[in-house]
Every structure is written in C-alpha cells, then in structure tokens.
C-alpha cells in the first residue's frame, strides 16, 4: 500500500456563519492524476487554499509527503514541494514575464537546492519553462501586455517553475480554445510523466475526463463522490448536483 | 489606605461621557474604513476643520455650536462626496489604493493642519455657549453639560445611523457593498455611487464631531493628530464596520483614558489610545467582538 503524497483529513473551514468546507477527506497517491470537480461555490478553491496554506483550516489536518502542514506558512509548503496556480491569474505586474518565473526559482527552488543552484542554471530553467508554455517570445514583456490566454499560461508556468512534487492547477483552462486546451493537457501529461502528481480542477468535463485517473466531486463543501471517473459521472448524486 | 472611590467613580463617569463623544468622532471611520475599506487617516482633519468652522460662525454670529454643526451636515456631505470622487478616479479605479491612496489622505491631513496653522495660528480656540461651564450634580457626581450634551446627541446619531443602515434601501446597499461589490452591481445598483454616498455620510459626521470637539475642549490645529490613534483604536477594538462595536470600543477607551488622566496625569493620555491600538492590532485584530 503506497503512502499517499497528500492526505486531507476532515478539513473544515467557515466564513462567519457560512460553512465553506464540511469535513473533507481526500488522499492523493504519488504520481496520480486527480480531477476535482463541483459546481461554483462548492468549495474547490477554498479547499486548495487550505491545502496550500493561503487560508487556515479550523478543523482537520493536511499531511503532505508524510509531514503535517499545521502552522506552516504557504511559502514553506511551496518549498516542500506543493505548488498551485490561482484561478484568477495573479502575476507580478511590475516585472517581466521571465522575471515572474524567476521568483519561484529564486525562492522555492533555491531554498531547496541551496548553493547547488547557480545563477546560470536558474536562467536555463527559466527559459525552459517559458518554452514549455510557449511564452519564450514574450519573455521581456510585462504581464499587462499579455492576452488572457497567455496570462493563464504564465500562471501555470509560475506554479511549474516552483518544481513541485504536487501541482494543483486551478481552472487554468477557462476561456481557452479547443487546441489551447489540448496544449495545456499535453503539458500537464508531460509533467505527470516526469513524476509530478497533479490535481486538476476544472469545469471543462471533456478535459477532466480524458486527463484524470481518479475523480472527486465537491458539492456545498462536502465530497460526494471519489473514484473511477466513468463510475463517478454515472453516480445519481453527481448527476443531481449538476443537473438538478 | 483611603482609596479615593469618589474620584474613581467620577473618572469612570467622565470616561463614559467622553466615550459618548468618541462615538461621534469614530462613527465616520466605522463607515469609511470599516465598511468601505478606505483608510481615511485624514478623518480627524475634517473634524478639526469642522471645529474651526463652528468656531468662526459661533464667535461671529453667536449661533449655538451644535446648531452650526447640524447646519454644516449637508456641506460636509458634499465635501465628502467630492473627496471620494477624486479618490475613486485617481486610485480605486486604477487599483492603486494601497500606497497612493494612503499617501493621498496623509497629504490632505497635512495640508489641512498646516493650512489651519497659517490662517488661525497655533492659539487655542473655543466655542461659547450657555451650557459650557455649568454641570449637573448628583451627590458627589459631576456631569458637566458640555460633556453630557455631546454624549447624548452622539448616541442619538448612532441610533439614527443604525436605523438608516438596517431599514433604508441605500443604507442596506452600503452594508452590502461592504460585503460584496460584485453582488451589488448585479442588483443594478451602482457601487461607486453607493460608496460615494457612504463616504459623504462619513465626512458629514465629522461636522457634528467637530462641533462637539470645540465645545468639549479648546482646539488648535495639531489636535487632529491625537485623534487618529483614538479613532482607529476604537474602530479596531469594536470590530470594523460594526456600529454597536463602536459604542463598546468608544466607552472602553474613554473610561481607560479618563482613569489614566485622573490618576497619572493628562500627559500620558495620548499613549493610552495608541498603546491600545498597537496591542489590539498585535493580539486581536478582529476586535473584542470579532466579526
């Protein structure tokens, strides 16, 4: 039995009187491709925020790579190998596209590798990630000069540049064309082939279905299904959540 | 030891009356900072401006200061709306409010203070009214009218505002904009207009607070700066945006300041408010009542 890379035990989060997460249990195995779906407002982004430390969960525990994440700040979790992209892109608007990718390399990766990462190596990695998302021709541009699609790619690239063990892609494909979605999926598959565990949060069902090995469904802060994608979509409760 | 219980009780009561006045001073910030998330550190400057205007009218025409304050409400409302419009166009729209918005209000605070120094000099000014001086007496308890009247009117003001925010459409829209601007715009109300109205109300309260200030104590231009800490301390203590919280925070600060001044001397009083603020920010930023 392999130990899960990420274990979420009974995580709960409220905002005032509103219960955003009601005891979520989730386990992700190393190298797995997990899809996470749910209607708007079901708590997907809140769950991501709690896993990554951007928000503090009131109950339950998050364990990553065998370590308890309680009390660890978001940047510490990123250094340990847990990275995420934001649903609404949050680029560093005063620096170039290339510099945006330098930041996780300068901080997360360097904190891990220490003196072993020279500045030439850093530059090489930066160029590599730019090329992977197809933004190398825009390396010196500022984020405000990018199209919406390019901003999403930058957002994803920045998460990748943190060289994580687990990457959470939060709705990176909204508004993309069919071929662009294919590109992103191919990219994520490439990353997964390298051994990076991926949680894909998406509304675009075709993408989720073709990508995920396992599918979890969140509705109103509760996980109502978790298992083989084909079976999950046939689950009557899941159908009701999306149609009813 | 003969514990000066009478002194203590008088200090507490004076503190409560002072707290009442602090409500008027703070309610504007409860609206602009608590509900609209606008860090208007220039609010005390508007209060002092109000004080000086009240002083001019009062000393020239002899009109009662509270009446002048009430008459100035619409004037200050318009002023507040205008300031918000500039703030919105220059900063909020561009998403620059963090650094530049703060600097903007700081600049206004500064310009107001220096401007008042240039026009009026640094002499103390005070208002004249028949109730400044005499006091109500119950056994050993002193209730100076100049403290009592502002306190009572402040409480009425707070009650009126609380009703406004819970009963009228615009009032509730203002509370809504505090929670979720997007939802409000979906309700076909213009968030910018709602915020402008709210900010206008916030500055209007400064007119009344200014009138109270010049009744309670003599003013000179730098007095405004002492109130910055008080105002934000009360706001944070009471929980941002909560009007009932403002009452609790104001009374608490008033009493503590009063006791400190009575037993340790008035030169320590400014440190009390600001010390409170620092401690609250450090340990309980959600306020005593929480949000």
């Amino acid at each position, binding site marked *: 039995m392999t130990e899960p890379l990420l274990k979420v035990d009974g995580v709960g989060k409220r905002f005032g009187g509103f219960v955003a997460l009601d005891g979520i249990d989730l386990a992700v195995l190393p190298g797995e491709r997990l899809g996470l779906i749910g209607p708007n407002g079901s708590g997907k982004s809140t769950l991501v925020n709690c896993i990554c430390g951007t928000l503090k969960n009131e109950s339950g525990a998050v364990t990553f790579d065998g370590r308890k994440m309680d009390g660890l700040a978001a940047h510490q979790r990123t250094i340990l190998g847990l990275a995420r992209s934001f649903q609404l892109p949050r680029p560093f608007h005063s620096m170039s596209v290339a510099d945006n990718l330098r*930041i996780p390399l300068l901080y997360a990766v360097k904190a891990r590798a220490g003196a072993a990462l020279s500045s030439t190596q850093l530059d090489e990695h930066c160029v590599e990630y730019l090329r992977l998302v197809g933004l190398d021709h825009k390396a010196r541009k500022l984020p405000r000069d990018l199209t919406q699609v390019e901003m999403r790619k930058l957002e994803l690239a920045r998460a990748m540049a943190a060289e994580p063990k687990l990457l959470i892609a939060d709705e990176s494909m909204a508004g993309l064309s069919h071929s662009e979605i294919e590109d992103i999926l191919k990219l994520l598959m490439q990353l997964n082939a390298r051994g990076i565990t991926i949680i894909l949060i998406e509304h675009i069902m075709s993408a989720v279905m073709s990508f995920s090995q396992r599918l979890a469904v969140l509705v109103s802060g509760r996980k109502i299904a978790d298992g083989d994608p084909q079976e999950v979509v046939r689950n009557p409760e899941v159908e009701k959540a999306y149609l009813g | 030891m003969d514990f000066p219980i009478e002194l203590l009780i008088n200090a507490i009561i004076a503190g409560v009356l002072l707290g009442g006045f602090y409500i008027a001073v703070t309610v504007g910030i409860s609206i602009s900072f608590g509900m609209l998330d606008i860090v208007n550190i220039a609010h005390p400057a508007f209060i002092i401006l109000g004080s000086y205007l009240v002083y001019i009218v009062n000393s020239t025409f002899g009109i009662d200061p509270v009446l002048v304050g009430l008459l100035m409400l619409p004037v200050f409302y318009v002023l507040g709306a205008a300031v918000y419009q500039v703030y919105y166009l220059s900063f909020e729209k561009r998403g620059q409010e963090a650094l530049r918005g703060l600097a903007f209000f700081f600049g206004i605070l500064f310009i107001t203070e220096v401007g008042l120094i240039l026009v009026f000099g640094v002499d103390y000014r005070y208002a004249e009214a028949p109730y400044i001086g005499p006091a109500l007496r119950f056994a050993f308890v002193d209730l100076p009218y100049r403290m009592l009247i502002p306190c009572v009117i402040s409480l009425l003001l707070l009650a009126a505002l609380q009703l406004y925010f819970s009963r009228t459409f615009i009032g509730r829209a203002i509370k809504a904009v505090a929670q979720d601007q997007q939802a409000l715009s979906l309700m076909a109300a213009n968030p910018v207009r709602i915020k402008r109205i709210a900010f206008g109300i916030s500055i209007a309260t400064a007119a009344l607070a200014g009138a109270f200030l010049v009744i309670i104590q003599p003013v000179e231009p730098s007095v405004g700066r002492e109130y910055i800490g008080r105002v934000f301390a009360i706001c944070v203590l009471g929980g941002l945006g909560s009007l009932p919280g403002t009452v609790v925070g104001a009374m608490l600060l008033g009493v503590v300041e009063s006791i400190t001044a009575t037993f340790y001397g008035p030169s320590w009083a400014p440190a009390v408010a600001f010390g409170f603020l620092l401690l609250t920010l450090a340990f309980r930023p959600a306020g005593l009542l929480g949000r």
Partner: protein
Amino acid sequence: MRSRVFLIVSIVAALLVLALTQAVANNYLFFAGYVVLQFVVLATAWNILGGYCGYVNFGSAAFFALGAYTSVFFHKTYQIPIPLLMLVAGIVSGIVGLGMGYLTLRLRGSFFAIATLALAVVLQTLIINWDYVGGSRGAYVIRPNTIQVFGMAIPYIEYLFLLMLLLAVAAIVTARMIERSRLGYGFATIRDDELAAEAAGVPTLRLKLIATTISGALMGMAGAPFPYYIGYLEPSSAFGLAYAVNAIAMPMIGGTGTWIGPLIGALLLGTIQQVATVTISSAVNLLIVGVLLVAFVIIAPNGLVGLVQQRLRAKER
C-alpha cells in the same frame, strides 16, 4: 554597473561634492547641505519599505527621533564619538523597527500604516515623560567649535556634513544593492501581490521584517547627529511634521521604484524647502510640500522618474 563599481563612483561623487564645498567656502552651505543630505537618507530609507515592499510608514519621525534621543542619552551618560553614536542609534532603531514589524506586519498593509502612526505618538509620549533626556523641556547638547580629524582641525559643522554625506552614500549604495539582489526581487513581489508571492515560495514575513529593520536603522542613524547639529533638542522638533511628510513626499514625488527617485526627490524638495524657509516661512513651505505630494500622487503616481520613463518609452514608439 556592478555594485563595486557603483560604490567607487558614489564615493568619488561624494568627494567631488566635498571639494565643491571647500571651493565655495560658505558656512551656510554646510548647514543647508546637512539638512538636504539628511533627507536623502530618510527618503531612501523610507523607500526601502514603502517603495520596494509597498508598506507605508507614517512614523518615520519616530525612528529619526529615536536616533536623536539615543544621542542625547549617551551625551548625558557617557560621551562617545558621533560615528559610534550613529552605529548605536542604528542598532536601537533597527531593533524597534523589527519589534514593531513583528507586532503588525502579519496584518494588512493598511493596518501596518496606522500602527506606524500609533508608534510615533507612543514614542513621543514616552520621551515627553522621560526627564532624563529632557522630557518636554528639551535637552541642550553643546557642540565644540572644531574637531580633530586626522590631525587637522576642521569646523564642527563640516564634520557633521561629512558624516551625513557618508551616510547618504551608504544608504544609496545599500538601496541599490537591495534592488538588484534576490532580496529586491522578493520585495517587489510583496508589493505586487503578496498572496502570489507566498505561493511562489517567498517568505514574505521574513522579508518584510528585514525591510522594516533596515529602514528603521537607517532613519535612526540619520537622527543620531541631529542634536549636535541643532544644539537644543525637544520632542516637537524631533518628532516634527516636517520629517513625517518629507520622508513620504520625497520618494513619492521623485519616484518609488528605484534608488534614484528618493535621491532626486530629496535633492529637489530639500533644496526648495531650504530656500523657501529662509525666504517665505516654514509653515508655507510645508504646505507646498503637502500640496505637491497630493498633486503628484494623483497626477504622476510614478513620480518624476516615472514621467521621464514614460517620455523615453513614448519616444521609442
């Protein structure tokens, strides 16, 4: 330009300034120049936290006064040479900056700004009530007429001018070094999007604490020679309005993105104010600074440097 080269260039520039003052042989130049250089340090120091990290400090006067009162304290207890005083003042102010940062930096930037205001008033109240350093009555610091430096007797004011010049060079070199370093990148991410910075692995709290410590320390160092410059120190001048508004106005008018902005802002505004104080009045001169601050913040938010950059970019097209 590599950092070492820049250091040499700035020292050479400083020596040129010094030579110029010797050539012009007007004592007033030293008095006025000291104040302008002091503002260069304050503006540069403020900008490290305000411009680079985006955290506004309204209490610059507090750190400056802390440095000044550290000097007074030592003057009354155990006299030590001014360069050493500056170091000690820097340490004291740095520690206070660290402490204040630790208490308030975990909150939003707006809360931090308010807390800095609060700190200034608390410190002022404490000093007013501390009789050993003069309390509200103030403290006299007698300064000698000349001082022996490398065997030569030079007028004391020139000595103070020299010290402040060196501090200004140190401040600018430090700011520039930070800008180009990993630390500077980190600061910029905090300013741009703190949440995203954390997610990218930037230890935001640690970096912010570094910024407040360095900023506070530099301001304290600028304040240390002040009692010797002015001869009589009392709380209202040490905690004065002029420091609070200038520390903010100079970087914002000059431009907050780089080390050049605060320098330009300080040189320009500092000189204007020296002229205005003598010719008009000190209150009007402060009013002008306030108006300029508001005007620039509304019309030219990136300061003079920003305007020049815009012009250059427009020409490129």
